[in-house]
């Protein structure tokens, strides 16, 4: 009897820290296989840099999911934000800070559409954001005139008209400052700041508690006097903030706002969030767990690439890790 409970405890501990254990194991295995090439400061920076974008999008998912929400359209909105950022910066030669601020404002304004569908029309989050994916993709390309936004390329029709018929962009290319956003150490600093912001919001402020209360039991939260709609709206605005930052970072890293450039980050970011959910037995979507999830994915991708695994198999690995994380989270749940 006693041994079975201690076995159970040990098993639970194993499941709770599974992500961290897998992380440590993979570090050990890759170090054994590749030695200094893997286990070095340079490579650590590589890993951190590559996880940054996923992490930032994953934070957007984390704040949406804490109050039991969801956002399938984060990737497409990120791409749209990148178009907007690049056009403001290149086409209209706005100062960098202004382009960033306006892009964030733009993301929040676009997010009002999500909130309208979810809070006013009461469409379930998943379905509303599924529909919005297409809206983002279509409107985004309408905005750029159907092409990517990169240095030297002529402006879209409406922007040309706005500038009095001149189709050459006002800024001829990216400046070092704008490109630094996507380079280390700045990209890593931005990621850390985003994780810290999300952590403080969810763990240290009353709003975070409200969001978790809603995630646990919306009715009870409502009857405790929590304004559930207001809180969901606030979570949405934070998600928009992270999405805008994510879009800007991706754009800067690619030195261009590529067509649908951020779309593919959605699934990776969701994987990071799900892996992070059970880290440390939190059973809650949380900022640090999400960061650990993203780190695990990046370490695996980095290490396997180094070991000569062809790149097109990597998604399968990512998927397998996600499956394991989900199994760990749900296998113990009771059946209805």
């Amino acid at each position: 009897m006693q041994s079975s409970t201690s076995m159970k405890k040990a098993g639970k501990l194993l499941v709770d820290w599974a992500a961290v254990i897998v992380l440590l194991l993979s570090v050990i295995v890759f170090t054994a296989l590749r030695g200094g090439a893997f286990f070095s400061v340079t490579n650590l920076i590589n890993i951190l840099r590559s996880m940054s974008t996923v992490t930032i999008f994953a934070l957007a998912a984390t704040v949406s999911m804490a109050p039991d929400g969801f956002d399938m359209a984060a990737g497409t909105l990120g791409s749209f934000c990148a178009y907007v950022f690049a056009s403001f910066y290149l086409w209209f030669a706005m100062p960098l800070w202004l382009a960033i601020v306006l892009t964030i404002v733009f993301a929040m304004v676009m997010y009002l559409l999500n909130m309208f569908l979810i809070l006013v029309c009461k469409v379930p989050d998943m379905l509303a954001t599924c529909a919005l994916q297409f809206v983002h993709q279509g409107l985004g390309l309408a905005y750029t005139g159907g092409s990517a936004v990169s240095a030297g390329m002529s402006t879209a029709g409406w922007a040309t008209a706005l500038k009095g018929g001149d189709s050459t962009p006002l800024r001829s290319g990216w400046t070092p400052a704008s490109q630094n956003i996507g380079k280390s150490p700045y990209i890593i600093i931005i990621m850390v700041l985003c994780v810290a912001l999300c952590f403080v919001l969810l763990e240290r402020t009353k709003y975070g508690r409200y969001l978790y209360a809603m995630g646990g039991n919306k009715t009870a939260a409502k009857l405790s006097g929590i304004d559930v709609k207001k809180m969901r709206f606030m979570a949405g605005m934070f998600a928009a903030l992270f999405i805008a930052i994510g879009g800007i970072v991706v754009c800067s890293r690619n030195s261009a706002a590529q067509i649908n450039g951020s779309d593919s980050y959605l699934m990776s970011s969701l994987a990071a969030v799900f892996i992070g959910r059970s880290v440390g037995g939190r059973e809650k979507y949380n900022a640090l767990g999400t960061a650990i999830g993203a780190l695990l994915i990046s370490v695996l991708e980095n290490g396997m690439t180094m070991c000569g695994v062809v790149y097109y198999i990597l998604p399968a690995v990512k998927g397998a890790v996600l499956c394991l994380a989900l199994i760990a989270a749900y296998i113990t749940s009771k059946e209805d």
Partner: protein
Amino acid sequence: MEKDKITLGTRKVSIEFPGVKALSDVDFQISTGAIHAVMGANGAGKSTLMKVLSGANPGYTGDVLYNGQAVEVRTPVAAKKLGIQIVYQEVDTALIPNLTVAENVMFNDTVMNMKGKLFMNYGKLRRDAQEVLKRLNVDIDVRRICSSLSLAQKQMVLIARAIQNTCNFLILDEPTAPLSDTETEELFRVVNHLRDTQNIAIIFITHRIHEVLRICDSYTVMRGGMIVDTTPITPDTTSKEIVDKMLGRSFEENFPKEICDIGEKSFVVEHLTEHEGRVKDVSLYVRRGEIVGLAGLVGGGKTELCKTIFGAYRKSSGTITLNGKELKIGKPVDAVKNRIALVPEERRKEGVLVAETVTFNLAAASLGSFCRASFVNDRAADKNAQKFVESLSIKTPSIRQKVAYLSGGNQQKVAVGKWLAADCDVYIFDEPTKGVDVGAKQEIFHLINEIAKAGNCVIYATCENSELLSITDRMYVMFDGKVMAELETAKTNENEIMHYATGATDAYAAC
């Protein structure tokens, strides 16, 4: 050809749940071609007995008799084979909302009699369903999707499903509770029609005595898991005699009523109506230091009234005033801002956050006061938790324990403590003693007395009359979303409460 009369009964049927004897040695009998009412206060054992008859409660001892022969009805299928069908009160749990009326009516047939067949014959299905509805003499388009039906129509679909199979005994569990007057008339018409043309026995579980007197041929009264009496209904049967049988000698649960100084009128509700009509034109007032009861049976509208006051249900008209100031309450947040607290009935679903710690829960309604500039001060929250764990003697190994692992009574204390921390003026309790043991009950009563003593207004909703009589100063008796009577606790008794709670509109004549 006239069907022969069939009888169904029980002999010495008993059921024991841990710690409670739900049924003890029940002898019960009915025969087809009659409408029989089964009545009793909440917890009298009506539903348990019906579950035994319908095979939903296999753990009974004793015999179920079919035409005098002992039979085994340990599963719903076995009961259905004997022609015992039951329609539960919650119609939505039995219907499949996204299928058509025809598919729902013929559902058992589709599930049970399709062995070896692959394709559905929808034409036949619809014709069969139409046939069954014609037997009931009701008119519903069988092509309609069930979710678009009214509650009364859904009930008809379920009754149709029941009689589509062999049906000798039809059990209706509180069928009229959610229905309007005209819908009730329609149900009665169908029930009478079934009895007269199909030779079916209808067992009617209800709280509504005047309905029983109108349409039933005989009645059984249950109390405390036993049958008190079974008699035919004659024109001389009065509602008073039934109420007396339902209550029997009153069990005096002694909870000391502590004396509070009652102040001036503080909390006033006038002409409150809920927008779906679940609360109809309710007016009440509470003075400072007063505990006002909301009496009534399950489904009488007490919970609905509490939630409407609190803003969880939308009101369509009426005013709520606190200390002379009219409050605008559109949602629960507004109620909390105006220092109104609700301890809801569904503790685990609505009252506490079971996945969170005791600390979290005790701070949930007043988190702002444990924050400096929106940042949670964990130490202050812990201190608050410590204070209430001690003062309410909440039994928990630690303030970091998840509330899910506490006992029901302790969870309830957490649900109350949350509001004490928020320091409210009006406290609304909805069935606060549901599912807690006697010891915890005493503590909760004491707690409520303390709240009143501190000069707050307390509203206490329960269907346990003995609790109302011991803890309240005054009470409003509700029936069907309306207040039927306002009673002074010191000058009333259970019989009078029951009289109004069963829908009587005439003044109670004490004997």
